[in-house]
């Protein structure tokens, strides 16, 4: 018998054994986040502290924004590469939908690409990230969905406003309200929530609640994703600017430069 073919088959089988990220994958829908990824946000916050010390003499700073990368991994990698070339960027915000189906494999691929960033990054959960068991993975990999930090006396509030995928669970407006209570203590306050308040998932009451919180706290910019098309404007014709970050699949991301008296938006085409 010709033994070449079975030996070749065996060779490829063994080769693939060693080339797998996870040699044995039990389930696509599994939610077992690797231990080293469980403190991703904490590690990024530590990096951010170092950056804040480095630029303590500057009175302005810049951060980059990307959203809705889904499974467009080439576009996301290109964005990461472009951000790495801009030394003025202090950190990166991802506006949600880092996955398409909330699968562990998609969270892993996103994590690997974002590891190439030489800045810290912060995420907000999107509706796609909640599919399958994505919410469990998100909480394990990044921590609580609602959180905030202060950088250069500006407050950044990350707020989960996904409604449909969470069985009509109401966004935690009380938490948001409490976070905004002391906004006058900061130079500027930014709220990052995946779904724009005029979008499909919001009822008129949700829209009114969100808009009222933004108005009351005089938020500098309310930042969103979800629609994939870039938008910047006073959607409700009041004093609050709303930014919808375009998706990398539409060849776009943006940067915000925060100066004492103004906020400057740059949109970058890939």
């Amino acid at each position, binding site marked *: *018998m010709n033994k070449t073919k079975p030996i070749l088959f065996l060779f490829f089988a063994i080769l693939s054994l060693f080339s797998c990220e996870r040699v044995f994958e039990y389930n696509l829908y599994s939610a077992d986040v690797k231990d080293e990824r469980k403190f991703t946000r904490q590690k990024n916050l530590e990096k951010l502290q170092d950056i804040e010390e480095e630029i303590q003499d500057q009175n302005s700073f810049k951060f980059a924004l990307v959203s809705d990368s889904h499974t467009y991994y080439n576009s996301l990698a290109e964005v990461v590469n472009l951000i790495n070339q801009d030394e003025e960027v202090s950190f990166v915000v991802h506006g949600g939908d880092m996955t398409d189906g909330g699968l562990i494999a998609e969270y892993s691929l996103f994590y690997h690409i974002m590891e190439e960033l030489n800045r810290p990054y912060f995420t907000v959960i999107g509706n796609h990230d909640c599919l399958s*068991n994505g919410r469990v993975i998100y909480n394990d990999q990044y921590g609580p969905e609602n959180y905030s930090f202060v950088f250069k006396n500006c407050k950044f509030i990350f707020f989960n406003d996904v409604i449909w995928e969470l069985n*009509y669970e109401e966004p935690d407006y009380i938490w948001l309200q409490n976070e905004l209570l002391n906004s006058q203590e900061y130079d500027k306050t930014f709220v990052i929530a995946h779904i724009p308040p005029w979008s499909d998932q919001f009822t008129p009451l949700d829209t009114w609640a969100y808009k009222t919180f933004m108005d009351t706290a005089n938020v500098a910019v309310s930042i969103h994703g979800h629609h994939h098309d870039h938008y910047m404007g006073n959607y409700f014709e009041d004093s609050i600017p709303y930014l919808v970050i375009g998706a990398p699949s539409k060849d776009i991301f943006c940067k915000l430069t925060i100066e004492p008296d103004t906020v400057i938006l740059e949109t970058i085409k890939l």
Partner: protein
Amino acid sequence: MGFGQDTIIRYKKTLVPNYVNFQYAGNLGAYIIGVGYYLNPKRTLDLVIGYGYTSEHKATIRIHNVFAKGIYFPYTWSLKKRWFLSPQLGVAISRQFSGGTNTFTRLPKTYPDGYYAPNAYRFHLNFGLRVRKSIGEDTFIKAVDFYIETTTNDLYLSYLLKSTEVGLGNVFSMALGVNLVLFNKN
């Protein structure tokens, strides 16, 4: 007729499987049990119907899978007495149950038409090697198969085709399995 007095011939009924299948991993569950059927007299086509269980310990949440897998054996080589080697190519369809409402076979009414594609069914592709040890026709277990296979699925392949950032190592994983053959003839 030349049968001895105490020879017992067992005839398989149509729905009685030819073998019992046990598998570890391979995206159909951590622990998998199934039944296998020979689909043709040449025994180059098999059908396995099975159930996979993934415990909370393995996946953080408990997941149940049911699947049907077709396997094609293009060649079988005789290695030495009673040992046979076959490459195997398989396609499977699986349905997963992990609780909650965020995996579905039909788009829930919550969403507008076309908002999401149904995500509870997956198609799997696998290839590997099977070694069969033939024990005998008179024994309860006629043969034992050991196999190793590498597996992927429709979603992972779509990532691979869409992006150069995704490598083979991201989309393939391994499975190990054993079949206990109870009926060698249909």
